[in-house]
């Protein structure tokens, strides 16, 4: 598997994602500069966390115009696996590859802490190795992760099971107390209608080694590794 990690000016989690793919998973990763117009034959596209363009206007607002985003869109429309983590998720929202928008955390503060997240859909390339309802412990680190969409859009997401991750308590129960930022329906991550584009605010790449406190995030990477292997078997 080869993962293209897109680097926007101001990205700051690109090396973390690259490290997991290369060192923990033993797969190929390539950093792709935002002005690049090719994805270098990657099987997976990963939009990492950070502060693209400083997040000065709105998170992800300027990054979506980067030349590489045209390729990412094409890749996504073709049904290939794309994941946006944190700032990467925000870019996918601004680019219209996923519905909705981000508001500031209801605390009005940046929050960096471990949270629990429930996997609500296992039929995406990034969650197919999860068990349904699996609770994983991974960190969040954001100031604007308060997911919002118009009520009818949210209903639609729920009906089409596009909510992939939901903030929950350690026992999997979902309530306002387990909602760190005010996201509607405790939404932590969603996927596209085609299910191949996934965005989430928590950072699975920060939770791939026990030495760092949790390896619960690794399952997302293992999932896509399996997804890629299966699709290439089908292709062959």
């Amino acid at each position, binding site marked *: 598997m080869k993962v293209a990690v897109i680097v926007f000016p101001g990205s700051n989690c690109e090396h973390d994602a690259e490290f997991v793919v290369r060192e923990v998973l033993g797969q190929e990763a390539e950093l792709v500069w935002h002005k690049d117009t090719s994805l270098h034959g990657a099987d997976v596209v990963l939009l990492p966390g950070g502060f693209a363009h400083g997040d000065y*206007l*709105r998170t992800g*607002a*300027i990054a979506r*115009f980067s030349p590489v985003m045209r390729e990412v869109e094409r890749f996504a429309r073709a049904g290939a696996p794309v994941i946006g983590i944190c700032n990467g998720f925000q870019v996918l*929202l*601004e680019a219209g590859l996923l*519905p*909705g*928008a981000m*508001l*500031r*955390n*209801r605390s*009005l503060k940046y929050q960096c802490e471990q949270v629990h997240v429930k996997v609500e859909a296992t039929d995406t390339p990034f969650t197919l190795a999860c068990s349904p309802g699996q609770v994983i412990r991974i960190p969040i680190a954001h100031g604007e992760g*308060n997911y*919002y*969409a*118009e009520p009818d859009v949210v209903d639609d997401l729920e009906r089409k099971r596009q909510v992939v991750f939901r903030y929950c308590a350690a026992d999997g129960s979902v309530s306002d107390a387990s909602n760190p930022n*005010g996201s509607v329906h405790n939404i932590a991550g969603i996927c596209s209608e085609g299910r191949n584009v996934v965005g989430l605010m928590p950072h699975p790449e920060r939770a791939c080694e026990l030495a760092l406190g949790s390896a619960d995030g690794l399952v997302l990477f293992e999932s896509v590794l399996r997804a890629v292997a299966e699709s290439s078997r089908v292709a062959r």
Partner: protein
Amino acid sequence: MRARVYVTLKPSVFDPQGTTVADALHTLGYASVKDVRQGKFFELDIDAASVGDVRRIAQEVADKLLSNPVIESYRIDVESGVQGQAGEGSR
């Protein structure tokens, strides 16, 4: 010429910042301040021939970049004595 683009959260969207400011004002004793909403604005110096051109460019830029139609609407003023016209951004 100068155009100003005022961007606000749509009325249907909860504004945590405005609410926090309102709460703080109440704590400070300003009970008469009933509601606060916070927005941002951009002053654009635009090099164009006419007020119409300036407005057109400002509008394009507001649609494309300065506002996110999912959560925000905007209003444009062009500085020329003419009062700006309100309108929701759309793309």
